[in-house]
Each structure stands twice: as structure tokens, then as C-alpha cells.
């Protein structure tokens, strides 16, 4: 675990030297809204102009509230929805360019860890069948070979001895064991990339730590690239090297983990961090500051910066009309907020005063 906290800051500059594994370019995932079943009535812009690079062996976290589009982004990356516009390049190739066969190969390169392990495992299949199916799909014909691979992966996720679990059904396992089966299923085809959608949110505190440590260990051993999707900023530090914060379909802040936790730049990130409790008795004596209102509708998001109606630092006439570009507020730390434009440097002081942490 010590390695977790140590690798996080040091690997950030290294990341740019590594190969880019997955590159998302101006991705738009828009869902059509139909009027009376036909006739276009507009779009739900779940993911709007998102770009980022993921390097080999790098773990990133995408953080946002429900309805911010993080699941749509994930589905596009898994090749489950076709983007409205933009590209997803895996090792330089557009994942949708190769047709069905291409997608099939791409999906064998990607492991997917679902949020709710019980819901993700078919209740009528034994652990053995659950883990065997992906191998059959990639054409591993030899029974013994399949079983050997299953045993190997089960040992790796610490479901050992495998014999105790092979013939069990999901309901016979505890939550932590179920999640281990899900991870084993994601790992069984030796993927290069793993997408983990809130892998620990349904688990108890102690089990949560076990699973986070396991994921980190697997990631390091296999030099696996990981996209960790979560709403819980307090667990990302133990797992990811970079954090992307998502709000209303856009990535509003991208930074290395410790940098983001200690020096958040965007007012929304600051609000998220301020809302998280560390266990401390003094919490009960004070109210937490929470921005008013709720995230906007993705059908007709507010013009300009999408956070401006809830933002107490907003600049009238700018934030409510012009979409903020990405500014490099600090080295390797990007944020989409007008306060970092040189023109508004004087307006930034109010925010900077609130950015002091101890």
C-alpha cells in the first residue's frame, strides 16, 4: 500500500514518456430525443467534447456525480454506444473502424468491472461457467487449458483454493468474493485496459480496502491501464495517478491525484472536496458549504460554463455566455474555468483565499 501513495506523484511526469494506449478525441455521446416516436426533438448531450489520453499502465479516475455523463463516457469506451461525433483510438486505431470483428477483438483487450457484483453475475451460472464463457468466446477449445487459466486467475484474485469456489453460485458468496469473481472475469482474457465502474461502492469499509488493494496489485503486476469511475473522491488517492473531474458532460479539471486534492482549481472541484467528510468529531458542530441548486439538464445545459448558475465566483457577462477553454492553471494541471484567464486574474483572489487546506 505504501507503494500506492509513493507512485502516485512520481509517475505523472513519466506518463508522457510511455505509449498512449487509448486516446479519446473530441468525443460526443449524444442521445436522440424523439417527438412522438419520430422527428428529432433534440439531444441529451451526455458527453460533450471530451478529450484525453490514457497511457499504458496508467490508472486514471473519472470523478463526477450521478447524471454527469461518466457512465456514457464509459459505455463509449467499452464500445457499447456509438459516439455522435469524435473518436476513440486504441493503439492508434479507431475502435469502430474495424466493424464487428474489430470491435470483438477490441473488447477482448478491455476488462470491465461492474459496480454491483451481485447484479453483474448471472445467478444461474456457477463461478466456473462464469469464468469459462469468455474463454470459449475467444476460441479456447481445450477444456483443461481453460480450467488451468481459470485456476490461475482465481489464485490471482485470491479466491483460493479455487476448488472451494468453482462450483459455487453467486448467491453463495459474500459481497467481497462476488466482486473478486467479477474482477477475475475481467482479467481472464489478459486485457491491456480495465474499466472499473464504482467497483467498491457497494462494499463495506474493510472489504472495500481489500478490493482496492487487490485492484492496485493487479494493475501493477500486469502494467494494466485502468479507468476508475467513481463519485467518491476519498478512495481515488489509493488507486489513481491522475483524476479527471466531470460535470454536466464535460471534463472540467484534469490533474495528477495529489495535485488535484491539495490544489483544486475549479470551483466545482473545490465544492466536491469540501463536501467530503474525514472522520472527525468536529464535523458535527459545523455546517458544510454546498453550492445551491442541482446539476443542469443535459438536454438544454446552461450557456457558457455549465457550472455558472451554481458558482459563487462567476463573472457576469463571461461565464454565462462563453464556454471556457482549458487553461493550464499550474504545471500539468488543466482546468476549464474563466478565472484562469489572465484578463480575470483579479477575480481569482476570492477563490484562491478558499483554496487553503491544512
Amino acid at each position: 500500500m505504501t507503494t500506492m501513495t509513493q507512485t502516485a506523484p512520481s509517475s505523472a511526469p513519466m506518463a508522457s514518456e510511455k505509449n498512449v494506449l487509448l486516446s479519446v478525441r473530441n468525443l460526443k455521446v449524444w442521445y436522440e430525443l424523439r417527438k412522438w416516436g419520430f422527428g428529432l426533438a433534440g439531444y441529451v448531450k451526455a458527453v460533450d467534447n471530451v478529450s484525453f489520453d490514457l497511457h499504458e499502465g496508467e490508472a486514471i479516475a473519472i470523478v463526477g456525480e450521478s447524471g454527469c455523463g461518466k457512465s456514457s463516457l464509459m459505455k463509449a469506451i467499452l464500445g457499447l454506444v456509438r459516439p455522435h461525433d469524435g473518436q476513440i483510438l486504441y493503439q492508434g486505431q479507431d475502435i469502430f473502424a474495424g466493424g464487428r470483428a474489430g470491435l470483438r477483438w477490441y473488447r477482448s483487450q478491455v476488462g470491465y468491472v461492474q459496480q454491483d457484483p451481485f447484479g453483474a453475475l448471472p445467478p444461474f451460472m456457477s463461478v466456473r461457467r462464469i469464468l469459462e464463457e469468455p474463454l470459449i468466446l475467444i476460441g479456447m477449445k481445450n477444456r483443461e487449458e481453460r480450467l488451468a487459466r481459470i485456476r490461475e486467475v482465481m489464485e490471482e484474485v485470491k479466491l483460493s483454493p479455487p476448488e472451494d469456489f468453482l462450483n459455487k453460485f453467486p448467491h453463495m458468496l459474500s459481497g467481497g468474493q462476488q466482486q473478486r469473481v467479477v474482477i477475475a472475469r475481467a482479467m481472464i482474457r489478459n486485457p491491456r485496459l480495465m474499466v472499473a465502474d464504482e467497483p467498491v461502492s457497494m462494499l463495506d469499509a474493510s472489504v472495500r480496502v481489500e478490493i482496492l488493494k487487490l485492484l492496485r496489485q493487479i494493475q501493477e503486476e500486469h502494467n494494466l491501464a485502468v479507468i476508475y469511475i467513481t463519485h467518491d473522491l476519498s478512495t481515488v488517492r489509493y488507486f489513481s495517478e491522475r483524476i479527471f473531474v466531470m460535470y454536466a458532460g464535460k471534463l472540467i479539471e484534469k490533474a495528477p491525484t495529489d495535485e488535484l486534492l491539495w490544489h483544486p482549481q475549479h470551483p466545482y472541484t473545490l465544492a466536491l472536496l469540501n463536501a467530503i467528510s474525514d472522520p472527525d468529531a468536529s464535523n458535527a458542530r459545523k455546517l458544510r458549504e454546498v453550492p445551491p441548486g442541482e446539476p443542469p439538464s443535459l438536454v438544454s445545459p446552461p450557456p457558457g460554463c455549465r457550472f455558472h448558475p451554481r458558482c459563487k465566483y462567476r463573472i457576469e457577462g463571461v461565464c454565462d455566455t462563453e464556454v471556457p477553454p482549458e487553461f493550464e492553471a499550474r504545471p500539468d494541471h488543466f482546468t476549464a474555468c474563466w478565472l484562469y484567464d489572465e484578463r480575470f486574474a483579479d477575480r481569482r483572489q476570492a477563490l484562491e483565499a478558499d483554496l487553503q487546506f491544512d
Partner: protein
Amino acid sequence: MSAQSSTSAQPVLKTEDLVLYFRTTKGVVQAVDHVDFELDEGRAVVVIGESGCGKTSFAKAVLRLLPRNVDTYTGRVYLDGEDIMELDDEEFRLRIRWAKMSLVPQAAMNALNPVLRVSDQVAEPLLIHDRQVTKEEAFERAREMFGYVGVPESFLHRYPFELSGGMRQRVAIAMALITRPRLIILDEPTSALDVLTQANIMNVLKKIKWETGTSYMLITHDVATSSELADDVAVMYAGQMVENSDAESFFSEPLHPYAKMLMAAVPKLRGDEELEFIPGQPPSLLNPPSGCRFADRCPFRFEKCDEDPPLFLVGDRKVKCWLFEKEAQGVYGTQPAVATGD
């Protein structure tokens, strides 16, 4: 506030030797096992523990919301000094449940009736429990409660599906508040919500507590968020109460080994502590070990742990662990007296 003055007064809620066992096809599940517990007026206690430790069953035992497969349900529950276990079911329903103690159930936001307007649902408990109240007065009170919990009045006549998750959760809290109960039991009130909504709901609960002096019992597995409301902390493990302390002392230094290890598993936003998990699994409640139930996973285990420890009083704190036998001032509760060995 009232918390200091009430230490000598009688507690709002007190349980003595509370037992709730369930019958299942595999045997008897000892969900709540001899729990002694008290909560002073105007204070909030958080009951923390992992899933399956009996914390929800404990709340159900207090509220007498029992499923059909109850095997044993014994002990005493005192509300404001009155023994409510003596009451028959009808009287309990009329005078206690929702009149003096109300509940915000787990996933309350999905527990609202989808075909009734939220105003009707919020006013309903008042109309049932207070025969003098007219419909108009009840709606007026519902409006007032909406103000408390921060739901705009224009939402009164909406249906649940027209409200967001956070708003529905607030409506459920308004429903629990409307009869001005002495005690509100909240079962995982924020666990399905986003971080910002969570912080908002916690703010609402704090304000209500400061303004009305209502006592809370908050049941949760989320230790970090629980500290937002806690005056006292009660830790449950395998159906038993293993520690009961004031929040100040608990969050700076938990006593029971399980509580210590649980706290070490809670991620902190910043800082470099390493996270630790607790090896092994909690014992089955079908046939729990006769000694300390945490012994198998405990790094401090010694011979004595084969016997069931009592709740030792350490200062104002109570802890069910033999390690504290020496420094304890005594034993709390009704459990069989310990034979002092020497």
C-alpha cells in the same frame, strides 16, 4: 445545549438485554444479542457496523417493526422512562410508533408511494396519530416541514417521480418529522446519494437537531459521513454492541480492537496513512462462538477471549473487550456479573 444538562436526567431511549432472534430454514439467527444501550435527550448516536452486523435489526427491535419469522424478542425498551415492551401492538402503534419514534427507512427515497402526491404522504402520519388535527392543519404542518428540510413549497403537490433523489430523501425526512417525535431513527439516510446531496442532507439534519432538540439514531456503514452528526458512537459487531463512546473520544481513539481496525479501513481524503483491512469474515450469526465474537480476527487475542466479555465501563465509555478489564470502573448493563478471578 440540552446535551450537557440532560446527563443526569433519564435517557430518551434505553434498552436492557434486548434480544431479537429470527427463525430461518438453517436455524436461529441471533441478529440482536443482549444489547444494553442508552441515548440521552437531544443527542445523536450513530450505530456503525458492517452489513449483517444487526444494526438494522436493532432499529427494528426498538421500533417493534418485526417480520413474521421472529424466534425470540425479549428485553426491555424504555422511551422517556416508560417501558414500551409492556404495551400491546395496537397501543404501541397508536402512541409510540411515529408519534414518539419515527423512522426514515433504508432507501427511503424509493419508499414513497408513486401514485400519491408528496403532500398527502407527508401529512398522513399526523392525521392518523392526532385525531384533533384537521386536514387543513395537517397540510399547513406539512408545508412547515418542507421549509425545515429545504424542499420548495411548490413541490408540495408533485408526485415522487417528479422529484430528484435528494428531494425525495428530504420528503421522507419531513414525513418522519411531522409528528414532532422524540426520537428519529435514520437507516442509511445518505448512502444512495451523491456527495453534494449527502452533505446537503446532513446539513438539514444538523439544523433540525439544533433547532428542535430531536434525538437521532443514525444507522450507517459509512463511518466518515456518520461523524457529521455524531454526539455518540455505538459500534455493532455480529449482533452485539461492542463499543459505545462519545464521538470526541471515539474518533480520536477508538477502544475496541474491531473499532480500531474499522477506523483504519476508512479512506481519508488527504494524508498518507496506509489503509488496513480486517482479515477474515464476521462469524455466522446462526451459531456464533461462545466467547468474544471478534476473537478469531483480533490481533490482541489472549486466553480470556474464550469467555464472553461484559460491557466494561471505562470512564464514560463502554467497551466489550477483556483488554479493558483492569482499567474498568465496573460493568455496564444487565449481563451476568463477571466472576472476578482473583
